[in-house]
């Protein structure tokens, strides 16, 4: 649980959009109803806003005309009627009749053109609105997708951690739990490990520490050294970036008493009997 001081420490990172999902959620929860924190956040946001002025000056093309054209295109009203411009001179006889007919045809054509122009302006306005809506939706969608991907990663990491914790607990809750400590062998680099054994259930949990990484074509393999069958393969694993290896295994049945546990370096996928160098070994106390 974060204290208010922790949240205050996180405010500059929050203003920068630099927090991960969990920390971000903690800040947002703390901000609700805390006017002082909100004031501080506003100040940090001002600092962040000013960072834009550090960007190297760059001469843009003349975008103002394009911007204003877009504004006018979106708000263009229907053109004013121009039918009144039709000639109104009075003419006599056939000339007048022909002129009137021509004027009527012109007026109809003009009226239709005005209608088309108005329709076109409305369509352009609608199109501009739709395009802007689409851009805004795309922007929102990209943001939501990025957030969703982050949350999925968080959930998957939590699920893995939970499954491992449950497996650990299942072994730890067994009766007559026995621990075998493993140390590096004479020629191996310094490392350590331990096996938690539950002979009644046959469940075992192995942890190794400070193991160096192995190349992609190699793995570490855990072995049970038994009274009757000698080395029996238990599991293969790779250590994480901190050198920690963790693997669940089953104690073999019918192989006689368990005498020791060992770890060797083997080909990727593991081998039925140990071939590679042994790096960890621990005797089982009877």
């Amino acid at each position, binding site marked *: 649980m974060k204290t208010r001081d922790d949240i205050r420490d996180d405010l500059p990172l929050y203003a920068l959009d630099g927090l991960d999902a969990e920390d971000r959620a903690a800040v947002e929860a703390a901000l609700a109803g805390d006017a002082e924190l909100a004031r501080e956040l506003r100040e940090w946001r001002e600092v962040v806003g000013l960072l834009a002025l550090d960007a190297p000056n760059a001469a843009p093309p003349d975008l103002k005309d394009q911007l204003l054209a877009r*504004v006018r295109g979106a708000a263009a009203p229907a053109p004013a009627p121009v039918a009144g411009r039709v000639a109104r001179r009075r003419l006599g006889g056939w000339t007048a009749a022909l002129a009137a007919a021509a004027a009527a045809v012109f007026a109809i054509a003009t009226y239709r053109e005005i209608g088309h122009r108005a329709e076109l302006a409305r369509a352009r306005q609608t199109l501009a609105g739709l395009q802007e809506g689409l851009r805004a939706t795309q922007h929102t969608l990209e943001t939501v997708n990025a957030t969703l991907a982050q949350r999925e990663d968080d959930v998957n990491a939590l699920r893995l951690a939970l499954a491992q914790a449950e497996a650990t607990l299942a072994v730890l809750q067994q009766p007559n739990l026995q621990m075998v400590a493993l140390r590096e062998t004479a020629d191996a680099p310094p490392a350590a490990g331990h096996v938690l054994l539950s002979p009644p259930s046959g469940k075992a949990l192995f942890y190794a520490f400070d193991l160096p990484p192995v190349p992609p074509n190699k793995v570490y393999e855990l072995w049970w050294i038994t009274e009757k069958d000698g080395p029996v393969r238990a599991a293969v694993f790779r250590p994480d970036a901190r050198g920690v290896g963790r693997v669940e295994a089953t104690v073999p049945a019918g192989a006689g008493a368990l005498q020791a546990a060992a770890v060797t370096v083997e080909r990727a996928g593991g081998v039925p009997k140990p071939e590679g160098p042994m790096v960890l070994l621990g005797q089982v106390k009877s």
Partner: protein
Amino acid sequence: MPRAVTNDVPESADVVAALRRKEEQALAQLHDRYGRVVYALALRITGDAGAAEEISLDTFWQLWQQADRFDGSQGSLPNWLLTIARSRAIDRVRARGARKRLQVEDPSDVNEVARPEDDAELVERRGLVRDAMAQLSADQRTAVALAYYEGLSHSQIAERLQEPLGTVKTRIRQAMGVLRRALGPLLTTP
């Protein structure tokens, strides 16, 4: 004697009111004042002049369309404008998939001559911001730049720089503290 500089447009409230009334002149004035900054920011983030043009236009267009949503209690109008631009530019880079790797400039390399058309107050503010950035160590500048220009979280920055998470977090906090102190005269938050 330099005149007092602030982080707000003096007539900010009037400009917002005019934008809400759909007065083109207000938008034109705002563009005259901040168009260059918005473009420069978008160009810095995307490294692509065409994308920077589009982002600049879309930023002012969004401001025009959504002026009703501006809330002065949450920050200044220029801040809002630059936040929109930054967000759009970072989204554009993410959508493109191939992020342009950040190259952090040494502020001492930035030796620009202000153009006659540049707003004098903006030039002065830019100078203060660059002086403030120059107070940061190279490591601090890199961490802040990765967060600001690439939109990376502190854990992503730690991964990028191959450094412990706590170190990166502390570095950004300290850098932001230095910037806040140095930029104090420009801040308007009471």
